[in-house]
């Protein structure tokens, strides 16, 4: 037991030095996660705030002008008048406008507003037409006078201003850690194999398990460091409320790292060169991000794909970290997620321990 600890310490000292010797590698542990958080925190938004809208008003009635004024007053849309549909369609062809609001010449007799959205970006199209029709309907009713018999009052819980950022920033923490740790783990093992130094380690009294643990701990430390770094930035810079229990975040991160590092080791056991490890790593990371519910809700996926997402550790950590930030949950709210991450991690570790000899 003591011998094991001594050997482990020696390996750890080597690993830490090897990882962090290159100043560019040290840079890579700190700066890219921060840049990713800041850039993505600002970039990731589905909302449409300043949409360019073409207006073709053949009617020129007071009512059409009033409706347009209401749209402008909403503040989300920038209107551009066009003389005819052909010119507006041309603008849409060139991606200059997101939608066209069209009043036909007989608008006074037949009050139909035509909204034409650019379907080549279907999400924005849905949001733009949703908002535009709400404004037009509302303002039309106000003009007509008389309140409708039923009103809908909506309350957005946990994120009252419907800020996409509050949804994405905690998710970015999870993906940053995945990106920072999985391929790194795989590469550290495969490099030894490719360089032939694995043979040399095999003639030392180092046991297989000691080798794997010694490879994982330094990367796990980097991962945990990144979690703390990025979480602090999310709270301090983006002012995302952290309502939950910090110890739950720690537990979640450790379990999550177990699964990402385990997957990294598993990748390394299937590759003999660093190039293969990197390609395989990409092959795993990209589906992991797509299927995790990071940007696309899992419930919208076809059922077969939904089953596949259960294999994705990011899926569980995303739920944990989002709820910790926004809903203020504790450790006991996510026992299933913790358990699944531990299970995935343990399975991956076991498989790679069996495969790496």
């Amino acid at each position, binding site marked *: 037991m003591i011998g094991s600890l001594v050997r482990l310490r020696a390996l750890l000292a080597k690993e830490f030095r090897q990882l962090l010797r*290159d100043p560019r*590698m040290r840079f*890579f542990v700190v700066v890219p996660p921060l840049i*990713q958080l800041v850039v993505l925190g600002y*970039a*990731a*938004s*589905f*909302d449409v705030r*300043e*949409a*360019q809208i073409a207006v073709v008003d053949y009617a020129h009635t007071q009512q059409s002008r009033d409706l347009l004024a209401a749209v402008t007053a909403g503040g989300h849309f920038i209107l551009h008048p066009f003389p005819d549909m052909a010119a507006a369609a041309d603008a*849409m062809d*060139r*991606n200059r406008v997101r939608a066209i609001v069209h009043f036909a010449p007989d608008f006074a007799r037949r009050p*139909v*507003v035509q*909204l034409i*959205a650019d*379907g*080549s*970006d*279907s*999400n924005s*199209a849905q*949001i733009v037409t949703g*908002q535009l029709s*709400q404004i037009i*309907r509302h303002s*039309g*009713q106000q003009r*007509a006078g008389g309140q*409708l018999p*039923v*009103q809908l009052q*909506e*309350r*957005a*819980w*946990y*994120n009252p201003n*419907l800020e996409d950022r509050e949804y994405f920033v905690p998710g970015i923490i999870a993906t940053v850690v995945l990106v920072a740790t999985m391929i*790194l783990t795989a590469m550290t093992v495969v490099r030894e194999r490719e360089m032939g130094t694995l043979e040399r380690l095999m003639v030392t009294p180092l046991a297989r398990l000691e080798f794997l643990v010694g490879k994982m701990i330094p990367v796990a430390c980097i991962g945990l460091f990144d979690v703390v770094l990025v979480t602090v930035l999310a709270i301090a810079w983006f002012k995302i409320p952290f309502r939950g229990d910090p110890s739950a975040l720690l537990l979640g991160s450790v379990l999550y790292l177990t699964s990402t590092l385990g997957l990294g080791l598993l990748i390394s056991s299937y590759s003999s060169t*660093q*190039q293969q490890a*990197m*390609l395989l*790593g*990409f*092959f795993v*990371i990209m*589906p992991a991000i797509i299927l995790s519910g990071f940007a*696309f*809700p899992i419930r*919208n*996926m076809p059922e077969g794909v939904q089953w596949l997402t259960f294999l994705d550790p990011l899926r569980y950590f995303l739920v944990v970290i989002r*709820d910790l930030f926004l*809903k203020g*949950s504790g450790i006991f*709210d996510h026992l299933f997620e913790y358990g699944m991450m531990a299970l995935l991690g343990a399975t991956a570790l076991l498989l790679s321990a069996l495969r790496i000899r």
Partner: protein
Amino acid sequence: MNLQHVRAMARKEWWHLLRDPRSLALILLMPLMLLFLFGYAVRLDISEAPIGVLQESRDAQSDDIVARFDASHAFQITARFHDRRSLRAALQSGQIWAGLVVPYDYAKRLRRNDAALQLLLDAVDANTARLLRNYATALVNDYALSLSGRAPPVRIEDRSWFNETKESRFAIVPGVIAIVMAVIGALMTSLTIAREMEYGNLVMLRTTPLTRGEFLLGKLFPYFFIGMADLLLAVGAAVYVFDVPLRGSLAALTLVSALFVLVVMLQGALISMVAGNQMLASQISLISTFLPAFLLSGFIFAIENMPVALQYITYVVPARYYVALSKLIFLKGVSPVLVWTEVAALLAMLLLMARIAFVRARRLGLLP
């Protein structure tokens, strides 16, 4: 520039590629896998969202509005509650996406034309919440109009061009091709030069009459063909598997894609030279290809919503131009001449990248 030298270098690189069938298989499979994942798994439109209902009184009017929600394509009532606390708990656990509250005096106030319904949204996912809110408002509005018996003061005819059903798959697949090519192109080349440097092979090349220009050209040549093969595979899958209409010309798409593949390949080569070892090169390409291409290209997040400073950053993301071009050619059938600025930007990037790579290659110690 001696073409024979270039050919020798390219042949050596081919052998490298063919000797490692596993990497080659990954490079050829990756685009298809990504396309299938995005094409099948990614749906931004919402149907049958699970909602819970708290109906505080059972009368015909309350039943009616609840039935309207259940019948609509957007919502599905999966749970009924009897008090606010259990509704709140279900929202908290994520079991339902929204809760509809029909207050106890709904029927009475409806007779006075002053009824109110409440929709409680789990807004952690703001985008979904926004879409649900829009659906619910439209639904309640239609219902209210039908009750009042008045003709609506304005009717809205809602259409969508280029993608009539607003299906997200059509909008996503052409963008995915761009993401795939951005990743594959840079990935293929980002390790090759670093590997030579790490192994010390470069020292051997220094003793040959190979110049740095010949070295770069020969290195990248085979990967260009693989990249174009990937592209055709992806376009074929998009058209024949996902039924995405290719309304523009295939030749234009191929030409623009070739330009883009060259840009990202040079980006990979540059990463390779700057890193000097494969581990660092893999880290740099991981964060400089997939994430910017995914998030800063306008693929799913519209660029015009980003803060101005960030919008400037997107100008140096090559995928930005290619995502736009791919969507334009696929869905709008527009000739790239019409949007020549995008093509020109890619061309400028190509020249700049080639220049930087050429200058940087001086440090490899090969003949000038």
